[in-house]
């Protein structure tokens, strides 16, 4: 990812959670977990955010509006909107309403274009990403960067909003799942969080996550290490150059194993949100990036490693210079 005169980066992040949170103990009492709450707490989880009346679209809009408002971004200065998340009628369905069979024309009621309209992004072209699960925002950021470099886009707004499955189960392979939306602004000349490297490894062999569960678990760690090695190589960094690992909020145990594989100390992991937010699917790393910066944990110029995995199966990583 070298050789560009401009330096695209992430200049702002905002997010929105639903109003209600539930502890893992409460989730267990409601029958929404497969594992015992004690086990999940031992893996680092404390509570998750649960949509009870909101729709994914409403949270996406809230997050994007917050980003524009809090950073004084004029809507018409955004040249591209990349939306990733629930599509079609699922994006507009509120958590407390029963899903209905979509009518013929409903499939064209897109959250991406409605978002452009509702946000007043008059000059933004719109792209939607799909089928990337928890790696959607990583892909959005990479597409944004590419558009900045190749088409001279100045500001790209990436928005993702994912709710957990309709059956309400809040656990995916020992990870507690939250509902959330996250908005990320990529700018062509960003003052902070410049993108120094990127990598994505996609293995279509694992497309059927149910059938290949054991193989996916087995391949997760070596492939994750490989993806991180690729992004470090792309950035020209060594593992020890990384100041902070900004995680996706899967179990702390799995992070300890991955850090062991990478030869990085656990102290480099910014893990505070695993307990208080759970796994928000695509938003984790960027929500964590914002919170770590607000908290003052990250100093300008520090080197950040973001890694995520998405079913389907994708291993992805970004190298940022804070």
């Amino acid at each position, binding site marked *: 990812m070298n050789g560009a005169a401009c330096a695209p980066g992430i200049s702002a992040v905002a997010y929105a959670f639903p109003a209600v949170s539930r502890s893992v103990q409460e989730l267990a009492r409601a029958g929404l977990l497969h594992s015992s709450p004690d086990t999940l707490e031992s893996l680092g989880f404390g509570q998750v955010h649960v949509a009870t009346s909101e729709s994914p679209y409403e949270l996406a809009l809230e997050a994007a509006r917050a980003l524009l408002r809090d950073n004084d971004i004029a809507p018409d200065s955004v040249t591209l909107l990349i939306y990733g998340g629930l599509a079609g009628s699922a994006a507009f369905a509120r958590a407390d309403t029963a899903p209905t069979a979509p009518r013929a024309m409903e499939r064209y009621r897109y959250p991406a274009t409605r978002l452009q309209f509702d946000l007043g992004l008059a000059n933004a072209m719109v792209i939607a990403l799909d089928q990337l699960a928890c790696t959607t925002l990583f892909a959005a950021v990479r597409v944004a960067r590419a558009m900045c470099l190749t088409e001279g886009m100045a500001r790209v707004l990436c928005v993702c909003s994912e709710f957990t499955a309709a059956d309400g189960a809040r656990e995916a392979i020992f990870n507690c799942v939250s509902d959330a939306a996250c908005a990320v602004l990529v700018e062509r000349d960003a003052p902070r969080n410049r993108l120094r490297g990127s990598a994505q490894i996609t293995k279509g062999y694992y497309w059927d996550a149910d059938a290949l569960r054991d193989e996916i*678990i*087995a*391949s*997760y760690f*070596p492939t994750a290490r490989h993806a991180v090695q690729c992004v470090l190589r792309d950035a020209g960094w060594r593992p020890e150059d990384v100041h902070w690992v900004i995680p996706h909020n899967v179990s702390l145990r799995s992070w*300890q194993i991955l850090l*062991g594989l990478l030869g990085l100390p656990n102290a480099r992991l910014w893990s505070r949100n695993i307990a208080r937010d759970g796994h928000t699917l695509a938003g984790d790393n960027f929500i964590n990036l914002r919170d770590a910066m607000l908290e003052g944990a990250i100093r300008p110029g520090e080197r950040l490693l973001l890694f995520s995995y998405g079913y389907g199966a994708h291993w992805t990583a970004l190298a940022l210079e804070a």
Partner: protein
Amino acid sequence: MRPGVFTVFITGGTGLIGRAAIARLLRQHPDVRIAALVRSGERWRSLVTTLGPLAARVVPVRGDITCDGLALGRGAHHWLERHSRAVVHLAADTVFSRSRDAARAVNVDGTRHVLELASSWQGVERLVHVSTAFVAGGRDGFIAEQDNGTGAGFVNPYEWSKYEAERLVRDGPLPWIILRPSTVACDNVTGTVTQLNALHFALRLCYQGLAALLPGAEDAPMDVVTTHYVARAIGAVMLRDDLAGETLHLCAGSRSLALGELLDRTFHIWARDESWKRRGHIRPALTDLETWQLFTHTVDELGDPALRRVTHALSHFIPQLALPKWFDTSRADAALGFCAPTVASYWPRMVEKLAAVAWEQRCRIAA
């Protein structure tokens, strides 16, 4: 039987190395006759099939090393007492996941029973005890052949029991030769595998994409040998009078392959099969023992039954990879006049063959 025939009493003669050793001894030494301890008629028939015409020089002796006096019949005992000139003690329980008691029953008590009996036979001139290089247990670094001590514990009860058995042999009244083979990878340099073991089990998991992590360093030596080499060594020392009191490493030693290179070569060979390559299975990540244990502990605690069985089975021997051992073979090489084949000379053929036959045999490992 002809007078002057040199009768060798062998335990474990129906096992993988035992069969090869018997065949080797009979071919190499026309005056040798074998008395083979066998536990069942089925095992005996299987041995006869393997040996073909050579089986005419093998006398089956029904018995069990876990019993006092090997549970020999009175006639068999007297016959062996009268004829035995040497003993090769090969019988062992090599399953790494056995309990300490189970390993003791076969490997320690069994050795004691063999020693007690053989030392009561006046004509026995020597005992060849087939041990394992992994009596070195939890030690790492350079392992000398004359080194008999370990203060570093053991990875599994098998290692411990073989270590204890060696002590019995050394303290016993018979002149002894101790042979310490490394892990047997295949029959010979053609790479043919007759019997799958723990090594192949681990390889199969790699092939299936189920091996996530392995403890160990890229440059850790993977010391493996062939059955042919071990059997040849047993045949070579059997009639030697000058090796009493010697302990010999039957190991690849400096002819080992580094773990990282071995895995790279293995995956490279498998990747020639386009259908396998398309799956995108990645080489297991090598890591420190602590991280590997955290992973296995997590799977043990949280994983589904199938994955738990995998990591549980591996946990009985895989930690050895994190204890790199450079086995000295200088005494063995000098005494035998030949050395183990270079691992690189047969490993590629072996992994190719294993994949080609789709791992048809059941791995001999407790899950």
